[in-house]
């Protein structure tokens, strides 16, 4: 009797499960993915289609703080700049920052997390200590202090600092998952058959953590965008580069709210809010793929028109099954 190699089985099972899961993304997740995709397209195309130079000022009275019009689709600022152009250009900077930070932080998190979980022992203790220390230090005050000290507050330094503070969350979660996987039979089996460590990591462990890593990436992007916008809003940013946060900074400084110049702060704010919502929804979808119990379909079960809760006893429906797959002869 042959022993089916559990190694292949787990890999194959994982792959088919993921493919099947992706096909069954809930509405929430699809909307999230759509929103994110739209923003990515807008970020790529934005600066090219911006009608004006975002920094082009004009102090002619007719151009100052003008509500949306044909000439300026999103109105103008207190210095006659076109809001639409600012948003289109700023979106790219903000998104690029978010994605780069997400990438760097996630790579760091994966490296640290998997190493800590897989190697165990001394390395685990050391890496866990390192990530816990970073986790525990308060992010925003540290950021404020660091960026306050730095003479140039450019994109690069912000990305670096944000990544440095953003990786521990993901590392912790990935480490926990790696620990669980390490104890699983299929990993033990592949080690028994002598597969080399890096192969085990790449072909057994990583594929089963894809949804976790993806969720971590999305969360980090969300955090990076939110934090960078917040930092810019309080004035800790590079003033020579337009970003969504910078628009809000100037809007706040120009008392846009009090002057009821909603067109100045609403677009940028809404962009951030919508992008954030899209990312959160996308994360939902990724969570649902990884954990089938969370799926909408699994939760909202309607039998006989009523939603059934976990606490309810098994419903009794005697009307006869609908669309039974196999024709069965009636026992008489």
């Amino acid at each position, binding site marked *: 009797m042959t022993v089916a190699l559990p190694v292949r089985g787990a890999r194959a099972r994982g792959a088919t499960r993921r493919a099947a899961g992706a096909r069954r993304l809930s509405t929430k997740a699809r909307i999230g993915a759509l929103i994110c995709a739209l923003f990515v397209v807008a970020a790529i195309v934005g600066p090219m289609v911006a009608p004006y130079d975002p920094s082009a000022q004009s102090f002619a009275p007719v151009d100052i703080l003008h509500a949306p019009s044909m000439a300026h689709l999103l109105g103008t600022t207190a210095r006659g700049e076109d809001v639409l152009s600012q948003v289109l250009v700023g979106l790219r900077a903000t998104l690029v920052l978010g994605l780069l930070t997400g990438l760097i932080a996630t790579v760091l998190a994966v490296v640290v997390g998997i190493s800590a979980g897989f190697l165990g022992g001394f390395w685990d203790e050391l890496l866990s200590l390192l990530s816990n220390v970073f986790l525990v230090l308060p992010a925003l005050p540290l950021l404020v202090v660091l960026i306050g000290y730095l003479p140039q507050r450019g994109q690069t330094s912000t990305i670096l600092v944000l990544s440095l503070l953003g990786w521990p969350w993901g590392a912790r979660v990935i480490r926990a998952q790696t620990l669980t996987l390490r104890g699983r039979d299929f990993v033990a089996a592949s080690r028994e058959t002598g597969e080399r460590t890096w192969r085990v990591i790449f072909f057994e462990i990583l594929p089963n953590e894809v949804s976790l890593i993806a969720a971590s990436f999305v969360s980090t992007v969300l955090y990076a965008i939110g934090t960078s916008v917040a930092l810019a809003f309080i004035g800790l940013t590079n003033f020579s580069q337009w970003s969504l946060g910078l628009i809000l900074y100037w809007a706040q400084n120009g008392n846009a709210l009090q002057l009821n110049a909603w067109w100045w702060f609403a677009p940028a704010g809404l962009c951030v809010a919508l992008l954030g919502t899209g990312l959160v929804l996308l994360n939902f979808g990724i969570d649902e793929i990884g954990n089938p119990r969370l799926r909408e*379909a699994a939760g909202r*079960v309607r*039998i006989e028109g009523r939603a*059934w809760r*976990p*606490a*309810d*006893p*098994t*419903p*009794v*429906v*005697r009307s*006869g*099954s*609908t*669309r*039974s*797959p*196999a*024709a*069965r*002869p*009636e*026992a*008489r």
Partner: protein
Amino acid sequence: MTVPVEPVLEISELSVAYRGAAGDVRAVERVSLSLRPGEVVGLAGESGSGKSTLAYGACRLLRPPAVITGGSVTYRGRRLAGRSVEVLERTPPELRELRWREIAIVFQSAMNALNPVLRVRDQLLDVVEAHLSLTKLDARERVASLLDLVAIPRDRLRSYPHELSGGMRQRVMIAMALAVDPEVVIMDEPTTALDVVVQREILGQIVELKQRLGFAVLFITHDLSLLLELADRIAVMYAGQLVEVASAHAVHHGPAHPYTKGLLNSFPSLRGPRRELAGIPGSPPDLRSLPAGCPFVPRCGFATDECTKVDMVLRAVPGARDPGHVSACPFVAPGAQAPDGKGTVSEVAS
């Protein structure tokens, strides 16, 4: 021989399906099974045969999308003094009274079935307080005596589940099941996760407790060999349907259904002549696409074209010593041999 006694649990034509977007998956199809007071009925079958679904469905413990699509479950416990209770028609509060006090369950994996953050004592107290109105002192004493029942030292009351060994945990599960004196105890593969030595201990304990307290047992397992020693009667399930019901003795020495023959052929017995183990080729069917007629046809050594037209009703086996011996296969008799020599059971002198 025996005076006919009313069954304490009577499952009649029960059907359970999992309702999905693509239609129903019939996990249990018109199963009838009855349990007499103090009797041990074994429910045997492969994984996915529907045996657990049957038991949990009868107690209405299956979660959506499981739906009960037909049949009845009648309970007649001694405490009900002659009345009978229709389980499928109880309201949730009524069901809660019925659960555990009348019908209790010993789950398969004790580690998963015990609350990890509660002490053993508190989990047992929960059950006692939910069903009996005792003073605090009496309740505690009862809980302590429950551990005595399963031979666990009383100082373990303060332990958490993860602090107990596997065997001890399973015995706690048994004590928990017996906490409020049920009439029926459903045991869902209670020893599958344990090693053989502990398995024997636990089984011995179960038998002794049953004799002492007099409850009926529905013992679910895939290991037919266990049932041959333990059960009074055995019911064999395949693809959600009953294929054979007989006394343990009859199943052991004269199984009628080819599937049962195959199961018996899958493990050696201590006594009797040596023979080749055959097992059953193939794998269980996909419940979403069952063939017409008997679901066992693809793997059956006796199969003919007639089998695709059979209606899977349990019929009395002609010539069987046990009058209650029924089988769903009208073509094969006990002791019959398959045309290719497979499906043979050696006749052991009883």
